[in-house]
């Protein structure tokens, strides 16, 4: 009744200033004219919109016109770099003039809807939002071919899920650099039937940059697997291994049917930290063959993903479990029909409700970050975060279920002469069990979903792996994690829907 009358009264009272003055005043301070025409709310809204839009404009212009001095230069640069700011400025000017015209109309007591003005504000905000949000639909298309590779890896990552066990066949020959009076190091004691190497000469000079090529060594190998590529590697005196290159190509050789090969290797160019104490160094020349044997095995990534998805499911489960246990008693404190008996219990009710509303409005991810500070990285932090959020969410749902209990059946049971315990068991419990079960399953579902991403901030579970693999650009491994998450959530969805259907 009351609130309906107000605008009418507002409209009927005459303006404090003549129309043209109202218009002029609104040019000085947008909205002032409307105020003096006694359309207070309209004035306030227009003033608020205008100030916030101007503020946003200034910010965007400063941002676009960075690193130049002087207001004019900044504006010039901003307009040049971001032409859309010009459009915005024009719209702002129209808006500003429109406000003044509106003040004139208001003071004339014309009944105009503010729809046009509101529309104007919305358009300006929209364009501004487009600019602030860096919205660029073209990027969706232009970078598509670049993204296609990684995307397809994510979509079908399964070759990364298996590995084949590998065996290395390797023999090492130490080479002395440079040649000195002392003999080159002993030839290693190759075992019978094991791969072995022979080299001639056993010492030499490194290549120099732009200068002489190094000593050429003839390397002969035996007892390798026929037909499989052998890679030649060097290990320098400080332990760095690198593949030998000649003419820009990696050096490799394929052994003949006897498992033998012979190849010429030039000592490479390498800059080593000079050390005056040693007259010579030992470089290891290696010939390595890698063969895969046996059946496919689960890869390290697959195993990790399985481990972590199990951890994820259990994080969600434990959080639900703790959440339910704590939410049950709390929900009774937050049920109005139980707590409205007197002032004291009513205060408890308001506190319980208030705390739950606040806790619920903070996302589990943020709770996880807070929990991390206390208990450190790992699944426990995730469990704490989800538990806290579950208590608040379940507490509210449970207490609403309690509030919607039908008192009729309770009275009917009481009227038969049942005692307190019997009344609860036969009148109350059957009414709250189904909603409680339903809400609990629903929460369990949410908790497992949440636990898949809570790892991204360090709260344990598969999210951690996912974010890590993404950062390493290991899209196939990340794809495995995404597949696991999708499958788990889909199964869970189905199961929880099924259970809920049974109960409700």
């Amino acid at each position, binding site marked *: 009744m009351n609130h309906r009358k107000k605008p009418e009264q507002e409209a009927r009272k005459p303006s404090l200033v003549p129309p043209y003055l109202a218009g002029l005043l609104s040019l000085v301070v947008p909205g002032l004219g409307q105020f003096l025409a006694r359309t207070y709310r309209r004035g306030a809204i227009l003033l608020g919109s205008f100030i916030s839009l101007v503020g946003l404009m200034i910010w965007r212009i400063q941002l676009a016109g960075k690193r130049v001095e002087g207001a004019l230069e900044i504006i010039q640069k901003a307009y040049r770099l971001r032409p859309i700011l010009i459009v915005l400025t024009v719209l702002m000017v129209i808006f500003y003039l429109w406000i003044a015209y509106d003040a004139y109309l208001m003071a004339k007591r014309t009944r105009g809807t503010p729809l046009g003005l509101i529309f104007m504000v919305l358009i300006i905000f929209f364009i501004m939002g487009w600019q602030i949000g860096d919205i660029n639909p073209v990027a969706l298309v232009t970078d598509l071919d670049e993204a296609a590779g990684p995307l397809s890896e994510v979509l079908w990552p399964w070759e990364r899920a298996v590995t084949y066990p590998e065996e290395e066949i390797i023999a090492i020959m130490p080479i002395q650099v440079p040649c000195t009076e002392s003999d080159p190091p002993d030839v290693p004691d190759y075992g019978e039937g094991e791969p072995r190497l022979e080299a001639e000469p056993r010492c030499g000079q490194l290549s120099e940059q732009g200068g002489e090529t190094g000593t050429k060594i003839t390397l002969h190998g035996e007892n390798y697997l026929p037909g499989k590529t052998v890679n030649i590697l060097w290990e320098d005196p400080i332990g760095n291994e690198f593949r030998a290159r000649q003419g820009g190509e990696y050096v490799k050789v394929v052994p003949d049917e006897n498992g033998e090969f012979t190849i010429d290797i030039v000592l490479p160019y390498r800059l080593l930290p000079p050390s005056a104490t040693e007259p010579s160094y030992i470089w290891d020349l290696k010939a390595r063959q890698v063969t895969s044997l046996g059946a496919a095995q689960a890869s390290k990534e697959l195993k990790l993903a399985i481990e972590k998805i199990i951890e994820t499911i259990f994080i969600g489960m434990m959080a639900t479990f703790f959440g339910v246990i704590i939410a049950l008693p709390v929900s009774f404190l937050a049920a109005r029909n139980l707590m409205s008996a007197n002032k004291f219990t009513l205060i408890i009710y308001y506190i319980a409700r208030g705390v739950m509303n606040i806790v619920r409005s903070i996302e589990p991810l943020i709770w996880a970050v807070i929990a991390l500070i206390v208990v450190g990285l790992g699944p426990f932090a995730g469990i704490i975060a989800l538990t806290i959020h579950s208590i608040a969410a379940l507490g509210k749902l449970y207490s609403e279920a309690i509030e919607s209990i039908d008192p*009729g*059946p309770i*009275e*009917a049971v009481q*009227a*038969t*002469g*049942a*005692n307190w315990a*019997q009344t609860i068991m036969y009148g109350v419990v059957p009414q709250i069990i189904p909603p409680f079960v339903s809400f609990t399953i629903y929460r369990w579902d949410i908790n497992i979903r949440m636990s898949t991403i809570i790892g991204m901030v360090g709260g344990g579970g598969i999210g951690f792996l996912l974010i890590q693999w993404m950062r390493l650009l290991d899209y196939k491994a990340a794809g495995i994690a995404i597949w696991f998450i999708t499958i788990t959530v889909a199964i869970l969805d189905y199961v929880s829907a099924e259970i809920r259907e049974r109960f409700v």
Partner: protein
Amino acid sequence: MLEVKNLTKVYDDGTVALKNISFTVEDGEFLIIIGLSGSGKSTLLRCVNRLIDPTEGDIIWDGVNLAKLEGEELRKARRQIGMIFQHFNLVRRSSVMTNVLSGRLGYSPTFQTMMHQFKESDREKAWQALERLGIEDQAFKRADELSGGQQQRVGIARALMQDPELILADEPVASLDPVLAHSILTYLERLNQEDEMTIVCSLHYLDLVQRYSTRVLGLREGEIVYRGTREEIRAMTDEEFQEIYGEQAQRVTGGLEGNLDEFGLGE
């Protein structure tokens, strides 16, 4: 014999629902209470089995003052008094059987009932009650799967489980159509005549009142404004009835002759 003496009920918010009411119900009577909505019918019935506490006055049943009973004694007394509700008040998600058996709670040890265990004789009794009301084939359905008439029969079966000597019925047919209303009241009439149970029932329809009552009380604003015998009420015209009753008075006659169209106009 039920004797109500100077009964007054003032609700917490100050509403005076009953003002110094006195009346007597002899054993075996079918007393019908009529009155406008808000006249205090429910309040009166619920004071008798103490679902609400009377503010003043006595309610003497079998020589015991129900108004003064507490705890165990009150529960013992409640066992003798069955109650039937307008909205049936069944536990909707429990089975019909469980609802009926709950009428036996006052006689059963707490611990067993917590485990949903009832004596074999109680289960037997429940079957008999269901059979008597013709709903034995619904026994294992959920209560809310039944039609309104069937639900009210479950309500009666639950009351029967108490072996009551007195049955309180608060507008037992107000949410049912006229045919069902007759069938439910016929069950109550049988309990009254065959089992000699005393029945106190509130009702809205004049012809139902005329057909089933042995005595009538009229309530208005918490006071008794009419007392009539069976004969008096049968001789009553619609106009007289409306005078004590008010605008809500209505007939459902014709229902049994088969003129079903009129039922829809009842409201």
